[in-house]
């Protein structure tokens, strides 16, 4: 055991490309299958509902709308809830805080993996719908505007609330409540010019009104305050040692 000398004073060099790959593999494991598969579960659930609707006599346009709603609405909700779990639960948090790799980096990798899985699933799902002639959304090239801004916005809100309050209850209710409010009060958002860009589901609920794509970009810009908040909160990661009241 030649290296256990106790005399080591120089820290290990920064991780290189090879260990980066291994690190991502490890973080994928930490993300867990339940969280990592959330986007898949979401689209499978949507597909199942569409099949049920078709079996119940729903026409092609209706089935297509169900599938589109799944991509625009259910996927963001599922991913936001999964992101909350990523941030709120970690068995070895204290150990992580004592390691030279910033905990923010660790969480960032896990969230990036979730985002990557979401993107892959959404793109594949879009492709399948398009190939099956069930796509009724915007041009396929612009299809990420359907799901990406809402997913990022709802996810950022959930992560921000989870970090701010250290409460899974508050974070999940915030994400769930906002999602439901957007579903219930679509007309309220549509009625005000200032509220429309903030609306999460303009295609499935507001019939992709003219200018909705620009509004999607505006919605994406409103993620910035959440992101800044998350960064500020992660600069004091020891706050996370005090868990939510269980």
């Amino acid at each position: 055991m030649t290296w256990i000398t106790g005399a080591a004073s120089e820290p290990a060099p920064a991780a290189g490309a090879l260990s980066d790959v291994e690190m991502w593999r490890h973080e994928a494991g930490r993300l867990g299958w339940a969280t990592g598969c959330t986007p898949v579960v979401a689209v499978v659930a949507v597909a199942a509902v569409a099949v049920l609707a078709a079996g119940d006599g729903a026409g092609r346009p209706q089935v297509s709308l169900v599938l589109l709603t799944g991509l625009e609405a259910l996927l963001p909700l599922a991913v936001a809830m999964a992101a909350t779990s990523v941030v709120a639960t970690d068995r070895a948090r204290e150990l992580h805080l004592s390691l030279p790799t910033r905990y923010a980096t660790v969480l960032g990798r896990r969230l990036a993996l979730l985002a990557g899985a979401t993107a892959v699933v959404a793109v594949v799902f879009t492709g399948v719908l398009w190939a099956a002639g069930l796509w009724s959304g915007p041009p396929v090239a612009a299809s990420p505007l359907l799901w990406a801004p809402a997913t990022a916005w709802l996810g950022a809100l959930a992560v921000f609330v989870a970090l701010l309050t250290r409460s899974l209850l508050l974070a999940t209710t915030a994400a769930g409540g906002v999602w439901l409010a957007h579903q219930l009060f679509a007309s309220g958002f549509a009625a005000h010019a200032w509220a429309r860009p903030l609306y999460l589901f303009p295609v499935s609920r507001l019939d992709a009104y003219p200018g909705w794509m620009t509004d999607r970009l505006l919605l994406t810009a409103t993620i910035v305050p959440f992101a800044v908040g998350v960064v500020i909160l992660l600069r004091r990661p020891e706050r996370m040692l005090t868990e939510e009241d269980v």
Partner: protein
Amino acid sequence: MTGVRATLAVCRYEFRMQIRRRSLWITIALVAGALAAGRFGMGPRYAPAPPGAPAREVMTRWAFLFSVILPIAFGMALADRLLRDRRLRTAELLASLPPGPAGRLTGTFLGGVAATGAPALAAMLVAAGYETVRRGDLTMIPWGLAAFAAVLAPALVFVAGYALVCPLVLTAPLFRVLFVGYWFWGNVLLPATLPTLTGSLLSPIGSYAASWLLGTPVLYAGIPGPLPVLRPEPTGSAAAASIALLVVAGLVPLLAVGLLRGRRRTA
């Protein structure tokens, strides 16, 4: 008698632990506050009752305003209560004590329901107090309590049964996603879009009770859709049937888990 006493003890301490969760109070306060503040822009259904409206109408409108989103908080709050024993490593200790799994489950359910309902009841009482002052009608408070009991409480019992049990199988995060999805599908989505229970006796949003209290159909009560037998005219007896059905349906998952755990213990 010992079993009943033990169940009551579990109930009492579950209530204490749950009611001390600051996040529960904050969540309910934020959701109720946001709904109250936003009700003017949410359409005529959710708008305040007109001046001179009877206390019954005023407070029922508050109850169904809250029932739209507040049960989401109930579900989120209760989703980890049975998993918690495992997480906090108290499951083994509790299993070694005389009360059987059925008693513990009943106590946890009753205590959890009571504690989770307390902030919602407080929100209703605040609304009733506000209306009492604003409209000068003291009957707002009893009608507030009645509207809570008829509209919100059955929703809480129904949600609690599933929120306690389903995460044992689905995991809490997955349950939370499905629960929000379910709430939208089973309460708001119109049957014309998809086969759904919206507007039926089994809609926990409280459409039948609210319709009966208001004297006019609201929240799609009785709307044509699948299972017509569950979609009678919204009358007083239909409201009572809806409340009873929701409570019984909420107890079904508990009964199933209680039986399963009891059998596992004796095996």
